[in-house]
């Protein structure tokens, strides 16, 4: 009896295009597994820009994948595999960003957006490297309040306008501008401090 189910299964390896097609047409686990494993790391990187906690980021990613799989039928893609990957990643990133924002907004009831709660007051680890590593940049971001971090990411990284950010976060545009200015100022300070510490270590 095991022969027939095996016979039914396709044995050819998946590409992103075929996985997307299979996901849309057959809603198969195989295609979803392929997409999930291929883009898990990418979406984690996106989520971690907004959400500090890694477990929380994974929740965001999983939630995003649920949306991705549900709406994958709406995603229109070209023939070229490279173009597909690029556009699909952008599409998924947008979903993940929105999910992250939703997550942060859900926490709004607990914390004032502009406050830094206790967890964020912990001093970041000082790298012994002579330069700021990628993770250190993230650590700098994590020093920002969530709302400022979100606005900075949305505006500078994702390319949203203040109007879009205002709608997304349900805040006035002016508030978005103000928070962005504050975020940049804080980041500059954190960056400078980080460098001076590193310089001191290197020169001592």
């Amino acid at each position, binding site marked *: 009896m095991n022969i027939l189910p095996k016979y039914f299964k396709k044995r050819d390896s998946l590409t992103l295009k075929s996985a997307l097609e299979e996901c849309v047409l057959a809603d198969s*686990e195989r295609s979803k597994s392929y997409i999930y494993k291929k883009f898990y790391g990418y979406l984690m990187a996106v989520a*971690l820009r907004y959400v500090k906690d890694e477990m929380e980021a994974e929740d965001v990613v*999983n939630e995003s994948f649920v949306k991705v799989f549900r709406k994958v039928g709406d995603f229109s893609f070209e023939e070229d595999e490279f173009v597909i990957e690029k556009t699909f990643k952008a599409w998924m990133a947008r979903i993940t960003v929105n999910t992250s924002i939703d997550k942060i907004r859900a926490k709004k009831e607990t914390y004032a957006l502009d406050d830094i709660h206790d967890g964020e007051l912990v001093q970041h680890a000082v790298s012994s490297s002579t330069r700021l590593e990628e993770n250190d940049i993230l650590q700098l971001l994590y020093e920002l309040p969530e709302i400022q971090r979100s606005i900075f990411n949305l505006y500078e990284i994702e390319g949203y306008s203040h109007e879009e950010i205002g709608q997304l976060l349900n805040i006035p545009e002016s508030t978005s501008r103000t928070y962005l200015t504050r975020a940049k100022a804080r980041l500059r300070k954190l960056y400078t401090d980080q460098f001076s510490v590193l310089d001191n270590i290197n020169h001592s």
Partner: protein
Amino acid sequence: MKSEKEIIDDIISRIKEQPDRGYREGAWENFKRQNPGTTTKTRPMARWISAAAALLLIGMGTLYYVKNSTILTSSDMNVNAVIEHKPVPTEASAPGQSHTESTTAMPQESPSNPSLDNVYAINNNTILANRNNYAQSQAVKQSLGLPLMAEGLNAMGKQIEIPSGSTLRETLVMPGYASIDLKKPQSTTSIPENLILAAKSIPTSELNLKEVETRNQNKQVRFGDKFDLALFVSPQSTGQKTNVGGGLTLAYNLTNKISVRTGASYNSYEVGIMKNPIEPSSSETVVVNQNQSNAPTIGKMTNAYSAAENNRMILPNINAVTSVVQSVDIPLEVKYNVGKSLYAVAGVSYSAILGQERNAHYVDNVNVETFSQGFPENETQMKSAVKAVSKTVKSAEENVSTNGFNGFVNFSIGKKVKVNNRFGVSVEPYFKIPVGQYRRADMDYTNGGIRVMTNF
């Protein structure tokens, strides 16, 4: 020292260049566990259901096709049998008798010469002139696939004496039918002689067409978790009669949802079919006792056809045929439990025919020789002399050929109610579609009923 703008640009570029995080082992499994609805597995059951549905569709299509093509063939043959009125010379004619008449005079025959024609008049319209031709009997033979008496006579080289009353002019008057003029040709080769006119709606007909299906009902006894033994009795009613069948089934549970079921059941299928007696296809080969070949029970209409060949003869104008087929059905079915108590069953069954009986019904005159006592003097005498009666004779034909596969395609749905842990009752309406020789038979053996099962 970098400018403020350079610092921000550096931060932005570094953030954008952030490498992807690696895949964490077990993340997908975790995702699947948390979102079972989203991670729709490749649903093998859906595939099986699709495959089963496709097979079912193909099966139904095939049945439909086979059924239609059968009807078409039969119809074509009937048409040929009616249209073909070519005089065919025969050597089986009685010597010195009307051989010439039956072979040469036909095209020129006029209704005024009733000695050569059998004229059937219904509602004052001449419907069919049955020439005493060999051609028609050939056509009848083709449609029935049966040897004709005349052919048998040819083979045997025998002569048959015609009863002296063969020149009698008979008039049968029945409600709704104007008159029937019957002439007995003197040639033994004229097969459709002594024709009796009748139709489905003859009020005096006492025919009872019964279409009855027998079905089984189940009682189940457990032989462990995997096997279920069931005894069943099933009442079934179709039209005018209710029959009861019975048997047992043995089910093997493949999974909690799916079982394979087989067993054996005794069934008696009683069906009937009305025929238009004026069509050649209404002929029926019947069994006669040689000693009684001219007996009144058979009727005058068959006298001229009585043949010595295997005690059979052809009765040309049958109103109806009823049949009883007794069989043991051996099913092979798949049972799918839709819910806790609801289930659906589909499968096929092989039907081993134990015995079958076929009866032909026709309308005859009450008297063998209608005017043997003299011509009627008034209407009362006329009516009593030509009173129509319905008669039944056993047919020599088989209802269902036993050469080849006989069976049914079975569908049923059932509801099981547990009385306690070991005892339960199921009610299972079912529907059976005939296949194989049952389908090829001239009657429709499609049947249905309700099984009431007792599970132990």
